């Protein structure tokens, strides 16, 4: 059973090594308070262009009364066109620094309960310079307000995005490449080997003993 012990040891060492070398996954993860309420916001801090971003919110209400919370995502001024939002309508609000486009999500948090919600499918479009966008996420409940700065960096996205291109381009590349395979491997092979069934393989003399055992 030595080999089993060795395998088990390898597994433990592998997992431990993987965990030790793994750095933190980059993302926004912020906790805060909004009066009695606790909130948590979680979002990626970078994305590929043409890919969706999802922002997750977790709201905990320890009070005996339900709470009505409004979560607002404020887009960087003048850059709302850099994103497509499938999950809701953007509207304009006045801010001291100027007008901003916002996406609003009303949330009812039950007394003593936790509510999870999300703003989904916010897509960074391509065709604009890659950059860091300074969003703000604002939580409001009655008079209480909490603001979380949210910076999102974009990196270059897919060169082809449609499902058809994603299928056909690799297929065309691979078909073109198959000519090279045919030429390279045919050099080692006998003439017409590709259409001739192979000779039956011979049983090895040094095969493992269990193969030739008879049932008891």
């Amino acid at each position, binding site marked *: 059973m030595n080999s089993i012990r060795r*395998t088990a040891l390898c597994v433990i060492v592998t*997992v431990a090594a993987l965990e030790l070398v793994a750095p933190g996954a980059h993302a926004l993860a912020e906790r805060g308070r909004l009066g009695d309420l606790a909130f948590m916001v979680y979002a990626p*801090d970078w994305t590929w262009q043409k890919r969706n971003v999802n922002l997750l919110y977790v709201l905990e209400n320890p009070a005996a009364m339900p709470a009505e919370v409004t979560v607002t995502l404020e887009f960087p001024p003048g850059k709302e066109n850099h994103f497509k939002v499938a999950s809701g309508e953007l509207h304009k609000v006045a801010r001291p620094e100027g007008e901003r486009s916002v996406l609003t999500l009303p949330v009812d948090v039950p007394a003593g309960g936790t509510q999870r919600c999300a703003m989904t499918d916010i897509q960074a479009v391509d065709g604009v310079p890659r950059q860091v966008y300074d969003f703000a996420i604002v939580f409001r409940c009655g008079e209480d307000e909490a603001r979380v700065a949210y910076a999102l960096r974009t990196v270059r996205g897919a060169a082809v995005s449609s*499902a058809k*291109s*994603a299928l056909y381009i690799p297929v065309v590349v691979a078909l073109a490449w198959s000519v090279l395979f045919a030429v390279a491997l045919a050099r080692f092979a006998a003439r017409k080997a590709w*259409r001739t069934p192979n000779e039956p393989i011979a*049983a090895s003399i040094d095969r493992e003993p269990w193969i*030739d*055992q008879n049932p008891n």
Partner: protein
Amino acid sequence: MDRPEPELNNTNPKPWSLKPARLGARGVLMLGAGSVIAAFYVGTGDVTVGTNMGAQFGYRLWWTYLVIGIAAWALVDMSVRYFLRFGKTPMSLFKDVHPVFVVYMFLAVVVCTTFGSYNQWSACAMVIAGLFPGVPIEVGGILAAAAGLAFLLTGVYKRLERLFVVGLIALILCFFGSALMVGMDWKAAAAGLVPNAPGKGWFPLFMSNAGSLINAWLILIYPYTMIERKWYSDRLQGKVNILHRARIDYTWGILAAGVIALPLMGAASAVARPFGILPRSYMDLSVLLEPLAGTWSTYLFLMGLLLAAWTSGVGWWVCGCYALLDIFNLPIKMDSRPLRIGLVLFFVPSCLLLLLRINPVYQMLIFSAFLAVVFPVIGLVMLWRITRPDMGYFAWSLRSAHGVAIVAADLFAVGLSLYIGWSRIGALFIQR
């Protein structure tokens, strides 16, 4: 001409009448090639499909792994029976029928291997980018592919098996660790084993799962691992023993795909479903995990994904090269020059495709559909071959329960392949 079976002529045992010799616990636990098989099954396709199933339907589609797994098992079993009967490699099966199938298989092998391996390097790159956002996709993917190439160019088959056993166990631990942190609903998971249609959208996922699990010529790979391990005998009892041991091996390999799907479904069910989010990439689930299950859950998921993708990428290359060597009747050997040339040739287009940065979820779902169209042809050819009268002891027979079970499994596998292929062809070409 096929080689005669001397023992059959002398003693003429009825098909499926011999008992295999008992394997000790050690023999049963040595699941090297099973882990190699599992590495083919468990890649980004499995992660994508499992995650999507969990996000949409919780655990309710877990049963699909059981149903499709039976079909995959039967298809692998057919190729092994052919190999044991004649000592011929899987591509001879197609050469026996008509050379046009060899051309078809050659193109399918090159396209699928390029496509499949590229997907895995892309997934590795995404994990690397998730951990180090400054590393471009191209660089991360090429690093992963180069590591795979270096490993294979300097390795022998035994080393591959050892690495894959460790890798597979580690990735199972990673995915389960990640899912346990977010919380698994074991009761719902058990209920998911009962076949059901949970609602609109389940059938395309079922199809994608079939394409991922019963993937094209990968169902033919097992005999190559048998050649590397010298698992062949002239004696009929030896063949029966080998078939018995091999079945345990690929049962484990196929089972692993279903086992790994469970934590993926569990995690997606717990973190994506309540928010109504359908993960659009492997990374979506990893970032969703953190607020509910903590940073370690994300780490574990990312590590599991990296292991799954890397071993699967290596697996695609190995399998593709074996199949190409087989087509040209070259020796099936990992440390041979033609195989190494094949590896380098696969490395180049895989890396070129990384420059396209194709959305991996679209690609995996489409690729699974593509595979689903390919494998019915393989299923039909195999069915034609293994039902010929010259199959001897391994022929179809309804005289014993074992024989009936084999016939039923073969028919089920080919029937399912045809149905899925037909549905996919309809979806791809007719409905549009």
